[in-house]
Protein backbone atom coordinates (compact mmCIF):
# COMPACT_ATOMS: atom_id res chain seq x y z
CA UNK A 1 0.00 0.00 0.00
CA UNK A 2 1.42 3.41 -0.86
CA UNK A 3 2.24 5.74 2.00
CA UNK A 4 0.08 8.65 3.09
CA UNK A 5 2.44 11.06 1.38
CA UNK A 6 2.17 9.24 -1.94
CA UNK A 7 -1.60 9.10 -1.64
CA UNK A 8 -1.79 12.84 -1.10
CA UNK A 9 0.48 13.45 -4.03
CA UNK A 10 -1.60 11.20 -6.27
CA UNK A 11 -4.77 12.98 -5.16
CA UNK A 12 -3.23 16.33 -5.98
CA UNK A 13 -2.06 15.13 -9.40
CA UNK A 14 -5.52 13.80 -10.15
CA UNK A 15 -7.08 17.10 -9.12
CA UNK A 16 -4.75 19.07 -11.39
CA UNK A 17 -5.37 16.61 -14.22
CA UNK A 18 -9.12 16.98 -13.75
CA UNK A 19 -8.91 20.77 -13.98
CA UNK A 20 -6.76 20.59 -17.09
CA UNK A 21 -9.20 18.15 -18.66
CA UNK A 22 -12.12 20.38 -17.74
CA UNK A 23 -10.71 23.39 -19.56
CA UNK A 24 -8.86 21.71 -22.40
CA UNK A 25 -11.16 18.94 -23.70
CA UNK A 26 -13.44 20.93 -25.99
CA UNK A 27 -10.65 23.20 -27.32
CA UNK A 28 -8.65 20.03 -28.05
CA UNK A 29 -11.46 18.55 -30.10
CA UNK A 30 -11.87 21.81 -32.00
CA UNK A 31 -8.12 21.96 -32.66
CA UNK A 32 -7.98 18.34 -33.86
CA UNK A 33 -11.03 18.84 -36.06
CA UNK A 34 -9.69 22.04 -37.59
CA UNK A 35 -6.24 20.79 -38.41
CA UNK A 36 -7.31 17.39 -39.73
CA UNK A 37 -10.45 18.12 -41.64
CA UNK A 38 -10.20 18.50 -45.35
CA UNK A 39 -10.65 20.99 -46.83
CA UNK A 40 -8.92 23.05 -44.20
CA UNK A 41 -11.56 25.48 -42.98
CA UNK A 42 -11.03 29.10 -42.09
CA UNK A 43 -11.48 30.40 -38.56
CA UNK A 44 -14.63 32.38 -39.33
CA UNK A 45 -16.57 29.18 -40.04
CA UNK A 46 -16.36 28.18 -36.43
CA UNK A 47 -17.80 31.36 -34.99
CA UNK A 48 -20.45 32.43 -37.40
CA UNK A 49 -23.25 29.97 -38.07
CA UNK A 50 -23.90 31.46 -41.47
CA UNK A 51 -20.49 31.31 -43.10
Amino acid at each position, binding site marked *: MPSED*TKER*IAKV*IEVGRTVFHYA*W*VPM*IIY*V*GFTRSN*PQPSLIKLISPLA
Partner: protein
Amino acid sequence: MASLPEQSSPNPLLFPAYTPFSSTLNRFQKWRADLGLPNPGTVENLQKEVKATHLTNYAFDGGRADLTKSISMNPLFQVTHSFALGSQTMAPSYNFGAIYASEKVFLQGGVDHDGNVSARMNQGWTASHVSKMQAQISQQAGHNLLQLEHDYQGMDFNLNLKAANPWPTDLTGIYVGSYLQSVTKNLALGTEWVYQRPTPATSDLVATYLAKYTSSDKSWIATAQLQPAGILQATYWQKLSEKVEFAADLQLMAAPMRRDALATLGAKYDLRLATFRAQLDSTGKVSALLEQRFTPTFAFLMSGEIDHFKNAAKVGVGVMIESSALSQEELEMQMQQMQMQQQALSPPPPTS
Protein backbone atom coordinates in the same frame (compact mmCIF):
# COMPACT_ATOMS: atom_id res chain seq x y z
CA MET B 1 -18.90 -36.92 -33.58
CA ALA B 2 -17.30 -37.91 -36.90
CA SER B 3 -13.54 -37.54 -36.80
CA LEU B 4 -12.38 -34.59 -38.83
CA PRO B 5 -9.29 -34.93 -41.02
CA GLU B 6 -6.33 -32.96 -39.72
CA GLN B 7 -6.57 -29.81 -41.79
CA SER B 8 -5.15 -27.44 -39.20
CA SER B 9 -2.02 -25.66 -40.33
CA PRO B 10 0.77 -25.81 -37.72
CA ASN B 11 0.86 -22.93 -35.32
CA PRO B 12 4.44 -21.64 -35.54
CA LEU B 13 4.34 -20.50 -31.93
CA LEU B 14 3.96 -24.02 -30.60
CA PHE B 15 6.82 -26.42 -31.15
CA PRO B 16 6.62 -29.30 -32.03
CA ALA B 17 3.79 -28.35 -34.39
CA TYR B 18 1.31 -31.14 -33.72
CA THR B 19 1.24 -31.20 -29.95
CA PRO B 20 -2.02 -32.73 -28.70
CA PHE B 21 -3.02 -29.37 -27.19
CA SER B 22 -2.70 -27.32 -30.36
CA SER B 23 -4.47 -29.90 -32.49
CA THR B 24 -7.36 -30.11 -30.02
CA LEU B 25 -7.54 -26.34 -29.88
CA ASN B 26 -7.63 -26.11 -33.66
CA ARG B 27 -10.35 -28.77 -33.84
CA PHE B 28 -12.39 -26.85 -31.25
CA GLN B 29 -11.97 -23.58 -33.13
CA LYS B 30 -12.97 -25.22 -36.40
CA TRP B 31 -16.05 -26.81 -34.82
CA ARG B 32 -16.98 -23.45 -33.41
CA ALA B 33 -16.55 -21.67 -36.73
CA ASP B 34 -18.58 -24.37 -38.46
CA LEU B 35 -21.49 -23.71 -36.14
CA GLY B 36 -21.73 -20.33 -37.78
CA LEU B 37 -23.17 -18.49 -34.79
CA PRO B 38 -23.74 -14.80 -35.31
CA ASN B 39 -22.25 -12.13 -33.12
CA PRO B 40 -24.86 -11.24 -30.48
CA GLY B 41 -23.99 -7.57 -30.12
CA THR B 42 -23.04 -5.84 -26.90
CA VAL B 43 -24.94 -6.00 -23.64
CA GLU B 44 -25.61 -2.26 -23.85
CA ASN B 45 -27.29 -2.79 -27.20
CA LEU B 46 -29.43 -5.63 -25.92
CA GLN B 47 -32.51 -3.43 -26.02
CA LYS B 48 -31.29 -0.99 -28.66
CA GLU B 49 -34.25 -1.47 -30.97
CA VAL B 50 -36.74 -1.03 -28.14
CA LYS B 51 -35.02 2.13 -26.95
CA ALA B 52 -35.10 3.56 -30.47
CA THR B 53 -38.83 2.85 -30.80
CA HIS B 54 -39.91 4.17 -27.40
CA LEU B 55 -39.72 7.90 -26.97
CA THR B 56 -38.57 7.88 -23.34
CA ASN B 57 -35.13 9.09 -24.38
CA TYR B 58 -36.35 11.59 -26.94
CA ALA B 59 -39.25 13.37 -25.26
CA PHE B 60 -38.56 16.91 -24.12
CA ASP B 61 -40.23 19.92 -22.62
CA GLY B 62 -40.41 23.56 -23.61
CA GLY B 63 -38.80 25.17 -26.63
CA ARG B 64 -35.63 23.90 -28.22
CA ALA B 65 -33.40 24.90 -31.12
CA ASP B 66 -30.43 22.92 -32.39
CA LEU B 67 -28.05 24.39 -34.92
CA THR B 68 -25.59 21.89 -36.36
CA LYS B 69 -22.76 22.96 -38.59
CA SER B 70 -20.78 20.28 -40.41
CA ILE B 71 -17.36 21.54 -41.27
CA SER B 72 -16.01 18.37 -42.80
CA MET B 73 -17.52 15.05 -43.86
CA ASN B 74 -14.50 12.79 -43.89
CA PRO B 75 -13.19 12.82 -41.23
CA LEU B 76 -16.46 13.95 -39.70
CA PHE B 77 -16.29 17.23 -37.81
CA GLN B 78 -19.46 18.91 -36.58
CA VAL B 79 -20.19 21.76 -34.24
CA THR B 80 -23.59 22.08 -32.52
CA HIS B 81 -25.25 24.92 -30.67
CA SER B 82 -28.29 23.88 -28.62
CA PHE B 83 -30.61 26.37 -27.06
CA ALA B 84 -33.39 25.31 -24.70
CA LEU B 85 -35.99 27.76 -23.55
CA GLY B 86 -37.13 27.19 -20.01
CA SER B 87 -39.96 24.90 -19.07
CA GLN B 88 -41.55 23.84 -15.82
CA THR B 89 -38.99 21.11 -15.33
CA MET B 90 -35.83 22.74 -16.71
CA ALA B 91 -34.14 26.09 -16.58
CA PRO B 92 -33.11 27.75 -19.86
CA SER B 93 -29.84 26.31 -21.05
CA TYR B 94 -27.26 26.56 -23.78
CA ASN B 95 -25.02 23.74 -24.84
CA PHE B 96 -22.09 23.77 -27.25
CA GLY B 97 -21.02 20.44 -28.71
CA ALA B 98 -18.26 19.30 -31.06
CA ILE B 99 -17.88 15.89 -32.69
CA TYR B 100 -14.84 14.56 -34.51
CA ALA B 101 -14.91 11.07 -36.03
CA SER B 102 -12.40 9.28 -38.19
CA GLU B 103 -12.12 5.57 -38.95
CA LYS B 104 -10.60 4.57 -35.65
CA VAL B 105 -11.27 7.49 -33.32
CA PHE B 106 -14.45 9.18 -32.17
CA LEU B 107 -14.27 12.30 -30.02
CA GLN B 108 -17.22 14.19 -28.62
CA GLY B 109 -17.25 17.09 -26.21
CA GLY B 110 -19.91 19.42 -24.89
CA VAL B 111 -19.93 22.51 -22.70
CA ASP B 112 -22.92 23.76 -20.75
CA HIS B 113 -23.82 27.32 -19.89
CA ASP B 114 -22.85 26.40 -16.30
CA GLY B 115 -19.43 25.19 -17.35
CA ASN B 116 -20.21 21.49 -17.11
CA VAL B 117 -18.14 19.53 -19.59
CA SER B 118 -19.20 16.18 -21.00
CA ALA B 119 -16.65 14.14 -22.90
CA ARG B 120 -16.70 10.90 -24.88
CA MET B 121 -13.93 9.14 -26.70
CA ASN B 122 -13.93 5.84 -28.59
CA GLN B 123 -10.72 4.31 -29.85
CA GLY B 124 -10.83 1.25 -32.05
CA TRP B 125 -7.52 -0.58 -31.81
CA THR B 126 -8.59 -3.36 -34.16
CA ALA B 127 -11.92 -4.38 -35.62
CA SER B 128 -12.81 -6.30 -32.47
CA HIS B 129 -11.16 -4.30 -29.67
CA VAL B 130 -12.67 -0.93 -28.81
CA SER B 131 -11.81 1.22 -25.80
CA LYS B 132 -14.23 3.87 -24.68
CA MET B 133 -14.04 6.73 -22.23
CA GLN B 134 -16.89 8.84 -20.91
CA ALA B 135 -16.55 11.73 -18.50
CA GLN B 136 -18.69 14.43 -16.98
CA ILE B 137 -17.02 17.22 -15.11
CA SER B 138 -18.88 19.96 -13.32
CA GLN B 139 -18.04 22.87 -11.08
CA GLN B 140 -19.84 21.17 -8.20
CA ALA B 141 -17.56 18.71 -6.54
CA GLY B 142 -19.71 15.65 -6.19
CA HIS B 143 -20.95 15.36 -9.75
CA ASN B 144 -17.82 14.24 -11.52
CA LEU B 145 -17.91 10.96 -13.38
CA LEU B 146 -15.27 9.07 -15.32
CA GLN B 147 -16.07 5.76 -16.97
CA LEU B 148 -13.53 3.63 -18.79
CA GLU B 149 -14.66 0.72 -20.87
CA HIS B 150 -13.14 -1.95 -23.04
CA ASP B 151 -15.17 -4.01 -25.46
CA TYR B 152 -14.11 -7.17 -27.27
CA GLN B 153 -16.22 -8.63 -30.08
CA GLY B 154 -15.37 -12.27 -30.57
CA MET B 155 -16.67 -14.48 -33.34
CA ASP B 156 -19.86 -15.37 -31.52
CA PHE B 157 -19.53 -13.61 -28.19
CA ASN B 158 -18.97 -10.23 -26.65
CA LEU B 159 -16.94 -9.33 -23.57
CA ASN B 160 -17.19 -5.92 -21.97
CA LEU B 161 -15.40 -4.45 -18.96
CA LYS B 162 -16.26 -1.09 -17.43
CA ALA B 163 -14.85 0.88 -14.54
CA ALA B 164 -16.70 3.91 -13.19
CA ASN B 165 -14.82 6.39 -11.00
CA PRO B 166 -11.88 4.12 -10.22
CA TRP B 167 -9.59 5.70 -7.66
CA PRO B 168 -6.00 4.54 -8.21
CA THR B 169 -4.86 4.30 -4.61
CA ASP B 170 -7.69 2.43 -2.89
CA LEU B 171 -9.49 1.00 -5.92
CA THR B 172 -12.92 2.22 -4.92
CA GLY B 173 -15.52 2.67 -7.64
CA ILE B 174 -17.95 0.58 -9.60
CA TYR B 175 -16.74 -2.20 -11.88
CA VAL B 176 -18.95 -3.95 -14.39
CA GLY B 177 -18.10 -7.02 -16.45
CA SER B 178 -20.47 -8.56 -18.94
CA TYR B 179 -20.35 -11.51 -21.26
CA LEU B 180 -22.87 -12.38 -23.96
CA GLN B 181 -22.60 -15.59 -25.98
CA SER B 182 -24.59 -16.84 -28.96
CA VAL B 183 -25.81 -20.30 -28.09
CA THR B 184 -27.84 -21.02 -31.20
CA LYS B 185 -28.41 -19.01 -34.34
CA ASN B 186 -31.27 -17.20 -32.65
CA LEU B 187 -30.60 -17.33 -28.92
CA ALA B 188 -27.91 -15.50 -26.97
CA LEU B 189 -27.36 -15.84 -23.23
CA GLY B 190 -25.17 -13.76 -20.99
CA THR B 191 -24.41 -12.36 -17.57
CA GLU B 192 -23.47 -8.99 -16.18
CA TRP B 193 -21.64 -8.62 -12.88
CA VAL B 194 -21.65 -5.26 -11.08
CA TYR B 195 -19.06 -4.95 -8.33
CA GLN B 196 -19.52 -1.84 -6.23
CA ARG B 197 -16.89 -0.67 -3.84
CA PRO B 198 -17.87 2.66 -2.29
CA THR B 199 -15.19 2.47 0.42
CA PRO B 200 -12.16 0.18 0.68
CA ALA B 201 -13.94 -1.87 3.30
CA THR B 202 -17.40 -2.37 1.80
CA SER B 203 -18.10 -4.09 -1.47
CA ASP B 204 -21.16 -5.53 -3.15
CA LEU B 205 -21.58 -7.88 -6.10
CA VAL B 206 -24.81 -8.04 -8.10
CA ALA B 207 -25.32 -10.44 -10.99
CA THR B 208 -27.83 -10.09 -13.80
CA TYR B 209 -28.72 -12.84 -16.23
CA LEU B 210 -29.57 -11.89 -19.80
CA ALA B 211 -31.23 -13.64 -22.68
CA LYS B 212 -31.91 -12.43 -26.21
CA TYR B 213 -33.89 -14.25 -28.84
CA THR B 214 -33.81 -12.98 -32.43
CA SER B 215 -36.11 -14.50 -35.00
CA SER B 216 -34.56 -16.12 -38.05
CA ASP B 217 -35.68 -13.39 -40.43
CA LYS B 218 -34.68 -10.69 -37.93
CA SER B 219 -38.18 -9.31 -37.80
CA TRP B 220 -38.66 -9.62 -34.05
CA ILE B 221 -36.45 -9.65 -30.97
CA ALA B 222 -37.34 -10.65 -27.42
CA THR B 223 -35.00 -9.98 -24.50
CA ALA B 224 -35.11 -10.62 -20.77
CA GLN B 225 -32.95 -9.39 -17.90
CA LEU B 226 -33.27 -11.05 -14.52
CA GLN B 227 -31.69 -10.18 -11.20
CA PRO B 228 -32.03 -12.86 -8.52
CA ALA B 229 -33.03 -10.13 -6.04
CA GLY B 230 -36.36 -10.10 -7.85
CA ILE B 231 -36.06 -7.60 -10.70
CA LEU B 232 -37.13 -8.65 -14.18
CA GLN B 233 -37.15 -6.60 -17.36
CA ALA B 234 -38.59 -8.19 -20.49
CA THR B 235 -38.91 -6.52 -23.88
CA TYR B 236 -40.36 -7.44 -27.23
CA TRP B 237 -39.71 -5.61 -30.49
CA GLN B 238 -41.20 -6.35 -33.87
CA LYS B 239 -40.75 -4.77 -37.26
CA LEU B 240 -44.23 -4.95 -38.73
CA SER B 241 -43.21 -3.46 -42.06
CA GLU B 242 -40.52 -1.23 -43.46
CA LYS B 243 -42.21 1.78 -42.02
CA VAL B 244 -43.75 0.51 -38.79
CA GLU B 245 -42.06 -0.84 -35.68
CA PHE B 246 -43.65 -1.90 -32.43
CA ALA B 247 -42.07 -2.39 -29.02
CA ALA B 248 -43.33 -3.51 -25.60
CA ASP B 249 -41.44 -3.26 -22.34
CA LEU B 250 -42.28 -4.75 -18.95
CA GLN B 251 -40.40 -4.04 -15.72
CA LEU B 252 -41.25 -6.02 -12.60
CA MET B 253 -39.84 -5.58 -9.12
CA ALA B 254 -40.72 -8.35 -6.72
CA ALA B 255 -38.40 -7.53 -3.85
CA PRO B 256 -39.77 -8.06 -0.32
CA MET B 257 -39.63 -4.32 0.31
CA ARG B 258 -41.05 -3.02 -2.93
CA ARG B 259 -43.45 -4.51 -5.39
CA ASP B 260 -43.80 -2.48 -8.55
CA ALA B 261 -44.48 -2.98 -12.23
CA LEU B 262 -44.34 -0.78 -15.29
CA ALA B 263 -45.48 -1.69 -18.78
CA THR B 264 -44.85 0.44 -21.86
CA LEU B 265 -46.22 -0.05 -25.35
CA GLY B 266 -44.90 2.02 -28.19
CA ALA B 267 -44.90 2.25 -31.96
CA LYS B 268 -42.75 4.13 -34.44
CA TYR B 269 -43.80 5.12 -37.93
CA ASP B 270 -41.01 5.97 -40.37
CA LEU B 271 -42.51 8.01 -43.14
CA ARG B 272 -40.61 9.53 -46.01
CA LEU B 273 -40.11 12.95 -44.45
CA ALA B 274 -41.22 12.35 -40.89
CA THR B 275 -40.81 10.01 -37.94
CA PHE B 276 -43.72 9.61 -35.55
CA ARG B 277 -43.56 7.80 -32.23
CA ALA B 278 -46.53 7.07 -29.97
CA GLN B 279 -46.42 5.46 -26.56
CA LEU B 280 -48.79 4.27 -23.84
CA ASP B 281 -47.76 3.64 -20.25
CA SER B 282 -49.25 1.65 -17.41
CA THR B 283 -48.93 4.73 -15.18
CA GLY B 284 -51.54 6.40 -17.37
CA LYS B 285 -49.18 8.45 -19.55
CA VAL B 286 -49.83 8.86 -23.24
CA SER B 287 -47.04 10.45 -25.25
CA ALA B 288 -46.24 11.26 -28.84
CA LEU B 289 -43.21 12.65 -30.65
CA LEU B 290 -43.13 13.93 -34.20
CA GLU B 291 -40.01 14.78 -36.16
CA GLN B 292 -40.82 16.31 -39.52
CA ARG B 293 -38.16 17.12 -42.05
CA PHE B 294 -39.02 19.93 -44.41
CA THR B 295 -35.77 20.30 -46.32
CA PRO B 296 -32.48 18.42 -45.90
CA THR B 297 -31.39 21.22 -43.61
CA PHE B 298 -34.48 21.92 -41.52
CA ALA B 299 -36.42 19.61 -39.21
CA PHE B 300 -39.24 20.34 -36.82
CA LEU B 301 -39.88 18.46 -33.59
CA MET B 302 -42.97 18.27 -31.48
CA SER B 303 -43.30 16.29 -28.26
CA GLY B 304 -46.37 15.89 -26.07
CA GLU B 305 -47.15 13.89 -22.95
CA ILE B 306 -50.37 13.66 -20.98
CA ASP B 307 -50.54 12.03 -17.56
CA HIS B 308 -54.15 11.04 -17.15
CA PHE B 309 -53.99 10.05 -13.51
CA LYS B 310 -52.27 13.25 -12.39
CA ASN B 311 -54.00 15.41 -15.00
CA ALA B 312 -50.75 17.01 -16.11
CA ALA B 313 -49.37 17.63 -19.57
CA LYS B 314 -45.98 18.49 -21.04
CA VAL B 315 -45.44 19.89 -24.49
CA GLY B 316 -42.20 20.55 -26.30
CA VAL B 317 -41.52 22.24 -29.62
CA GLY B 318 -38.17 22.34 -31.34
CA VAL B 319 -36.33 23.06 -34.56
CA MET B 320 -33.16 21.45 -35.86
CA ILE B 321 -31.13 23.30 -38.46
CA GLU B 322 -28.20 21.63 -40.13
CA SER B 323 -25.93 23.67 -42.28
CA SER B 324 -22.79 22.64 -44.01
CA ALA B 325 -19.81 24.90 -44.24
CA LEU B 326 -18.72 23.21 -47.41
CA SER B 327 -19.59 24.70 -50.74
CA GLN B 328 -21.17 22.50 -53.35
CA GLU B 329 -17.86 21.59 -55.03
CA GLU B 330 -16.18 20.74 -51.74
CA LEU B 331 -19.15 18.57 -50.84
CA GLU B 332 -18.86 16.68 -54.11
CA MET B 333 -15.14 16.18 -53.59
CA GLN B 334 -15.78 14.72 -50.15
CA MET B 335 -18.44 12.37 -51.51
CA GLN B 336 -16.00 11.19 -54.16
CA GLN B 337 -13.30 10.60 -51.57
CA MET B 338 -15.68 8.59 -49.42
CA GLN B 339 -16.73 6.47 -52.37
CA MET B 340 -13.14 5.82 -53.35
CA GLN B 341 -12.35 4.76 -49.81
CA GLN B 342 -15.28 2.38 -49.78
CA GLN B 343 -14.18 0.87 -53.06
CA ALA B 344 -10.66 0.44 -51.75
CA LEU B 345 -11.97 -1.39 -48.68
CA SER B 346 -14.30 -3.75 -50.54
CA PRO B 347 -12.80 -4.96 -53.81
CA PRO B 348 -14.99 -4.51 -56.88
CA PRO B 349 -16.83 -7.63 -58.10
CA PRO B 350 -14.88 -9.67 -60.61
CA THR B 351 -15.87 -9.11 -64.19
CA SER B 352 -16.75 -12.41 -65.85
